[in-house]
């Protein structure tokens, strides 16, 4: 895959915010999927969202994409479209690759549909499969079409939900090259992944989510440093250690709060008992 050439879009610099998220909360009934999440993504920045299964990564990206409404909080998007590449390829199996691209380009009111379709086919390396039905493609190629659909409207920011999950190592390598080129061309990229090494390798910043809470927002190196002093660990081990430490710290805070509440309750009972005797 080859990214579109050129620098940051007109008027956009590396410091231009493409996404600003504040106090984002999402409740599914009583279950809390996200709680008070806030961060900023800038043009040309690669932001990785990592965390264990069920941490809220997909929910966060779906809200940023406008596919799911938040229960509270706000998402400010920069002018220009936001591209979205959902976890499952969102395309029509009974349409060909070119027909899928053409349809979504028309729906997005892209100015020059044939040129855009041709460009995306070339960038994703699918020009020779343009006439093939999407349903007949391999998982990797379907994912390429999925990515291409997310980039049709030349977005200022693109959101990718576990984009490499169905790819083999070589396809994965090509995808990351493509995404890196997108970022270097000035597109803000926010991606989620459960392959932690990808975050270390490609992201400028990582956001660590656990049980819907944003635990960490900073460069990968900083996360490794915070996970514990002195030990030689790879990034994945450091990430797991960080989660464990934060988890045990949170557990001890919760235990302390519970003990304090119980003590208060016991004191009130004792006061009521002595008052009754008097």
């Amino acid at each position, binding site marked *: 895959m080859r990214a579109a050439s050129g620098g940051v879009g007109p008027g956009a610099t590396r410091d231009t915010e493409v996404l600003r998220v504040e106090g984002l909360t999402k409740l599914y009934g009583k279950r809390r999927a996200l709680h008070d999440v806030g961060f900023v993504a800038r043009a040309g920045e690669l932001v990785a969202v990592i965390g264990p299964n069920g941490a809220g990564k997909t929910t966060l990206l779906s809200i940023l994409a*406008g596919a799911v409404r938040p229960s509270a909080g706000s998402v400010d998007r920069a002018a220009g479209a936001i591209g979205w590449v*959902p976890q499952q*390829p*969102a395309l029509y199996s009974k349409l060909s690759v070119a*027909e899928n691209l053409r349809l979504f380009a028309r729906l997005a009111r892209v100015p020059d549909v044939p040129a855009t379709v041709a460009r995306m086919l070339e960038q994703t390396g699918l020009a020779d499969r343009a006439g093939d039905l999407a349903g007949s493609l391999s998982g990797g190629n379907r994912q390429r079409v999925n990515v291409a659909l997310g980039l049709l409207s030349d977005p200022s920011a693109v959101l990718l939900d576990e984009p490499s999950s169905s790819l083999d190592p070589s396809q994965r390598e090509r995808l990351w090259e493509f995404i890196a080129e997108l970022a270097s061309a000035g597109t803000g990229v926010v991606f989620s992944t459960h392959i932690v090494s990808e975050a270390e390798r490609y992201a400028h910043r990582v956001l660590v989510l656990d049980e819907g809470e944003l635990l960490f927002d900073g460069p990968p190196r900083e996360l490794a440093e915070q996970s514990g002093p002195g030990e030689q660990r790879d990034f994945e081990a450091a990430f797991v250690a960080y989660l464990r430490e934060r988890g045990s710290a949170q557990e001890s805070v919760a235990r302390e709060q519970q003990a304090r509440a119980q003590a208060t309750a016991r004191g009130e009972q004792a006061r009521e008992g002595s008052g009754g005797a008097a």
Partner: protein
Amino acid sequence: MRWMLAKDLVILRRSRLLVALLVLYPVAIALLIGFAISRSPSAPRVAIVDETPPGQVITLGGRRIGLAEYTNQLFNQVHVVRVPTRAAAAAKVSSGDVIAAVVIPPDIVRRISSGVSQAQVEVIYNGDALEQSFVRSTIDSALAQANLALSEQITHVAVRDLDLLLAGGSLEALGANQSIIGLSHISPALTDIARRQPRALDRATLIRVAGFADFAARNLSVAKNVLTTVSAPIRAKSTLLAGKRTPLDTYAVVVAVSISLMFVCVLLAAGGIALEREEHTIARLIRGPPALISREGLLAEKTLLAAGSSFLVAIAMLLGVGTFVALDLSRVGLWVLALAFGAIAFGALGIAIGALAREVRAASLLAFLLSLPLAFLALVPSGSVARGLYDVIGAISFVFPYKAALQALDAAVNGASPGMGVSIVHLLVLTLLFGGLARVGLRRAE
């Protein structure tokens, strides 16, 4: 919306098997239902054991009716399988070769001819409750027809004799022809004789006898009418309160077409929305701002696609069937109106099912599970079930569009009651209701 419509048409064109099934299955079901309603069943096979001696004749009032003539009347509604003995007949019933057997006893002629004792035939039958009910009603109906034919014969003989008694004429008795005067001629004859007699007791007596003869003649004339009436005591005179009388075959066409319209439309609309979910494209389409297509736009597009496709199937069916059944082609404009509103209401029901079911298989199953009973419930005639149950059926039929669409199409094709206006308003209300439900179903996906 036009790009989505074009996309769906391309997908439909590439799903030929699905489209073929979607069109052929409801058409086949609809035609079966139509034939079942419009065609009377073929004559059931009934075994007959005739134990009477050959050449027996029933003699009634001097009139002779061959037994074969009577049994022909009795069995002209069934396919007769003649068997020699009662045991053979029972075996045929047990094996299911015939649905019933009728045994005509040897003394039937004597009993009928006696005019005082009732003749009796034995009916042997088997099978489940439904078959038993069918056999009983078939044999009862056949007996009623045969008895009616016999009583008509008896009435005919009695009326002829009464005519002779009243008007006089030639009567064959004891091998010789005798001329009888007739009751109506006695009174004038006696009055004439009395006028010529001297005023005495005999003259007064003659005048009294003449008066009685006149009275008897007039009352016997009334008795002739009474006899004719007794042979067919009740005749039906039909009064339709509203609309036109709907012939059964054109009503069957309406039922068949409306069922096809419902199946094609509900399945396409439900499948269309569910397919967007299954392909994960729905979130890509409606996310925003700005959305590629609004939620309402997406629902309207699926409704339009399903309604348009089913409309074409239905109108083709109507025009096709119109070559076999006499339909009033001057009402085509009304057909189009009824089919269009019906299709849109079915489309709204379909998108509601698709939005709630979330996947194609579940949506298709739900569409079938809903559509089939709806069609059957709408066809249950009032009075055929208990009042309370009929009210429940009526309430269910009211909140789904099938019955309203059937009534609209019946009004359009046959001019039946209630008129199209009421049914179309009903369909519009249901369209809004199910459209709203579909919108809520899409919201639930978030």
